[in-house]
C-alpha cells in the first residue's frame, strides 16, 4: 500500500485519509514530470552531440521553421495531461474542503508564538499538544489572536491559514487500524508570523478510540506547582520571547525576575510581584519595560491560562535565579 502510494519516498507518513488520494496524484505528477524531463533532456543532448558545429562555416543540417502536425500534437498532449491533473486535484480538494457531519469539533487558537488547542467537550486550552482519535473525522475551527498563522500537519496533507477576524475550518481523519495510534506528528506554523515563526510548533498525538475516551490531554500535569509553572512556560509560548539566561529576546528575560525592579517606558518604576505578573499576562501592553517599546505581546485570557495556572507560573518564577 505504502510503496504504491509513494514509490519515490518523497512524502511524509500517510497518516490521514487524504493521503490515499493525494499521494498517488503526487506520484503521477512526479512520474509524468520525470518522463517529460527525461525525454526533453535526451533530445536536447542528442541534438547537441549529433548536430555539433565541427567547423566554423558549417551550416545547419536543415532549416525547418515549423511543422504544423508536430506543433498541434505537442500542444494537445500537455493540454490533456494538465486537464486530467486539474480534475484529479479538484476532486481531492473537494474532499479536503468539506468536513463530514459527524466530525468531532476542536477549537484552535493561534497567537505569536503558540498553538492553543481546545479539545472536544473541554473549555480549557491545551498548549501546543493535540490528541486525536484514529478512525474519526476531526473538524478544527481556528482563530488567530494577532497575525496570520497556518495550521499544517505534513503527515495529514492538510493545511489552512489562520486569519485574524475570521473563523477558518479544517478537517482530517486518521485511518483506523493502520498503526498510527501511538504515533506523534509534527504540527507546524506554515505562514510567516514574525520572530519565532519557526518555533511555533506543536505535536499531534494519535491515540485509539478507547484511549481517547479517557481524555488524555487532561492528564500528565505535574503535582508540584513549580513544575507546572515551568510546563506552562515551555508549552504556552512564553519561552519564545522570554529567556531564562538574561539574553535578550522579543521581551525581557526572566533571569532573577521575582522582585526585580526597573523602569517602564512611561518613566514610572515597577516591581515584579504577583499582581504585576498577572497583569502582564492578561494585559501585556499595560506596562511596558523600558527598551521594549516596539515589542507586541498577545494577551492570554482565562481559556489560555487560568488564574490557577498563573499562580503556578508565579511559584515557578520565585525559584528563578
Amino acid at each position, binding site marked *: 500500500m505504502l510503496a504504491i502510494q509513494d514509490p519515490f519516498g518523497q512524502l*511524509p507518513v500517510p497518516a490521514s485519509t487524504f493521503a490515499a488520494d493525494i499521494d498517488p496524484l503526487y506520484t503521477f*505528477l512526479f512520474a509524468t514530470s520525470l518522463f517529460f524531463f527525461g525525454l526533453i533532456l535526451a533530445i536536447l543532448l542528442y541534438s547537441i552531440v549529433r548536430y555539433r558545429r565541427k567547423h566554423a562555416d558549417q551550416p545547419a543540417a536543415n532549416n525547418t521553421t515549423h511543422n504544423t502536425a508536430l506543433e498541434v500534437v505537442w500542444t494537445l498532449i*500537455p493540454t490533456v495531461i494538465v486537464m486530467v*491533473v*486539474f480534475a484529479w*486535484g479538484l476532486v481531492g480538494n473537494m474532499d479536503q474542503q468539506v468536513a463530514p457531519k459527524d466530525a468531532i469539533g476542536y477549537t484552535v487558537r493561534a497567537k505569536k508564538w503558540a498553538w492553543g488547542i481546545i479539545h472536544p467537550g473541554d473549555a480549557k486550552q491545551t498548549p501546543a499538544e493535540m490528541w486525536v482519535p484514529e478512525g474519526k473525522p476531526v473538524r478544527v475551527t481556528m482563530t488567530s489572536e494577532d*497575525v496570520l498563522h497556518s495550521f499544517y500537519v*505534513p503527515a495529514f496533507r492538510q493545511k489552512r491559514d489562520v*486569519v485574524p477576524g475570521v473563523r477558518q475550518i479544517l478537517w482530517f481523519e486518521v485511518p483506523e487500524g493502520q498503526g498510527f495510534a501511538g504515533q506523534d506528528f509534527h504540527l507546524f506554523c506554515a505562514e510567516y508570523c514574525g520572530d*519565532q515563526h519557526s518555533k511555533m510548533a506543536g505535536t499531534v498525538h494519535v491515540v485509539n478510540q478507547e484511549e481517547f475516551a479517557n481524555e488524555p490531554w487532561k492528564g500528565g500535569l505535574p503535582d508540584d506547582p513549580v513544575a507546572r509553572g515551568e510546563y506552562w512556560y515551555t508549552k504556552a509560548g512564553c519561552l519564545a520571547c522570554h529567556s531564562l539566561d538574561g539574553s535578550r529576546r522579543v521581551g525581557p528575560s526572566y533571569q532573577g525576575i521575582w522582585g526585580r525592579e526597573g523602569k517602564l517606558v512611561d518613566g514610572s518604576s515597577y516591581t515584579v510581584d504577583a499582581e504585576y505578573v498577572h497583569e502582564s499576562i492578561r494585559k501585556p501592553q499595560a506596562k511596558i519595560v523600558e527598551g521594549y517599546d516596539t515589542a507586541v505581546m498577545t494577551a492570554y485570557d482565562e481559556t489560555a491560562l487560568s488564574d490557577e495556572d498563573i499562580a503556578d507560573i508565579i511559584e515557578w518564577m520565585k525559584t528563578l535565579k
Partner: protein
Amino acid sequence: MTTNIPTVDPATSGGVELRKEPSYLRVSSGLWSWLGTLDHKRIGLMYLVGVTAAFLVGGALAFLVRLHLWTPDGALFEPATYNQVFTLHGVFMVFIFIIPAIPASLGNFVLPLMLGAPDVALPRLNLASFYLWCTGTILAIYSIINGAVDTGWTFYTPYSLETGTAVVSMGLGVFVLGFSSIFTGLNFIVTIHKMRARGQTWFKMPLFCWAIYATSVLQVLATPVLGVTVLLLAFEHIYNIGIFDPQYGGDPVLFQHFFWFYSHPAVYIMILPGMGVISEVISVHSRKPLFGYKLIAFSSISIAVISFLVWGHHMFTSGQSEFVMVAFSFLTMFVAIPTAIKVFSWVATIWGGSVALSAPMLYAIAFLIIFTIGGLTGVFLGTLSVDIHLHDTYFVVAHFHAVMMGSTALAFFAGVHHWWPKMFGVMYNETLAKISAVLILVGFNVTFLPQFEMGSLGMPRRYATYVEEFQIYHQISTVGAAILGIGFALMVGYMLASLAGGRRAKANEWGGVTLDWHTPTPPNLYNFDEEPVMTGDLYDYTSGIPDYGKDAPMDKDELAERQAAEGWNA
C-alpha cells in the same frame, strides 16, 4: 558633442574595417556624458552595472541564509536577524534585480538595435526611469539602515502593520521602483509600435522584441496595482484606515489579493524577457531559424494575458471561496501549455542546427534544463489537493528559484555573454565562461533539488530553525550554494578582466543575422551608419552572415529596385 573620429590603420587593427564614426563608448567622455546621457546603450549599461551589483548583494544575503541553515538551531543569527536577511534577499532580488534586469539593461541596449532604430522613442523618459530605479534602491537601502524590514518581500498584513521595522520607507522604495518599471515598459511599447525598421513587419521582429513587448504591457497594466497596494499599506500603517487590519475592520486576505494581482503578472515580467533572450541565443548559436516562430510569439502574448487571471493560486490555503479556487486552478493549468510549447520549440530549433557549444549557448542549455524543472514543478503547485500539502513549503521555494534564478537570471547571463562583444567590442575568456556555466548548472541543482525533496516532506519556508530530520537536505543545499557562489564569482572575475585586457571582438562574434548584428561593433551613437531596411527573412542564415563593412545596408535606389522586384512595401 565631440566628434573626433579616431583613425585606425587597417594594417594594425587586425583587419577590422575603418569606422565612419566613433563608437558610442568613445563619442564623448567624462562622468556627465554618462550620468546625463540619453543614449539607450549607455543607459542600458548603467542599468547593467546597477542590477548586477544588486544581484551580488542579494546573492551574498542568500548565501548567509544558506550558511545559517547549516544547523537546526541556526548557525549564524538570532531569528529576528535571520528574518531581516531573508526579507532583504527577496526585496533586492525581486524588486531591484530581477524585474529591471533583462528589460532595462539588455532590453535597453538591444531592442532599438533589433528594430533598426537610432534610440528608444522617449530617451528622456528612459533616463528618468534609471534615476527612479536609483531612488527606489536608495530608499530600500535607507530602510535597511533605519530599522530593516522583517516581513518577507510579500509584506503580508497584519504582521507588516505591527512590526516595528521600516515597512513604510521600504514600501515607498517599492512604489518608486514600480514607476521606474512602468516608464521602461511604456517607452518600449511606443518604440516597438513606432520605430521598427522599414520592411520590419510585426512578424519580422525578433522574438526578443515580442517578449519585451508582452513584458511591457504587463509592466504598464499591472504595476499600478502594486503602487496602490503599497500606498494603502502605508496609509494603514500611519492612519489605520481599516482596509487591511482586522482590528479596524479591514481584511488581511484583501491585501493578498491586491499584492498577487500585481505580483503574479510580475512573475512573467521576470521570465518573459528571459524567454526572449533564450530564443535569440539558441537561434544564433544553432545557426537556424527559430522553430515555430509564430507559436512562440503568440505564446508570449497568451502567457501575458493568462498571467492576469491566476493570482489566486498563491492563496489556496487562505480560506478564499472553494469555487474561486476551482477557477484559479483551472486557469493556472493553461500557463503550462504555452510554456511547454516554448520548450519544445527551443529543443526543435537545436535539432538539426549547427550547434556551437559557445559560452552563451551553454548558459542557454542550462536555462533549458532548469526551466523545464521549474515549469513541471509548477503543475504540482497548480493542482489543488497537492498544493494544500506543498503550499508555503520549500517545494515552493525551490520551484520559484528554478524559474527566477535558474531561468531568468541564467537567461540574463546568457544574454550578457551573447551581447558582451557587441556592447564593449571585447571578448571574455570563453573557457572560463564555460566552466562557470557548468558550475552554475551543477550548483543550482545541488542547491535546489534537496529543497524540493524537503518541501514534499513538509519543511515550511521562512524558518530560522528547523527540526533535525531536515538537516541533511539543508546541508546539501548549502554546499550547492557554495558551488553557485564560486561560479558567479568566477563570472564577475573574467568579465571584468575582459574589459581590462580581453581580445578584440569580431565584428559579428557569433554570426547573428538580426539587425543588432548589422551595426558596427561597438555600435555608433545612433547605431547604424545608414538607415537599415529589412528585406529577407528574419532568421535567414543561408544567405550569408552579416559582417559589418562587407554587407553594408542598401542605398535608396537599391531599395526601390528590390521593392519593385519582390513586391513589398517599406
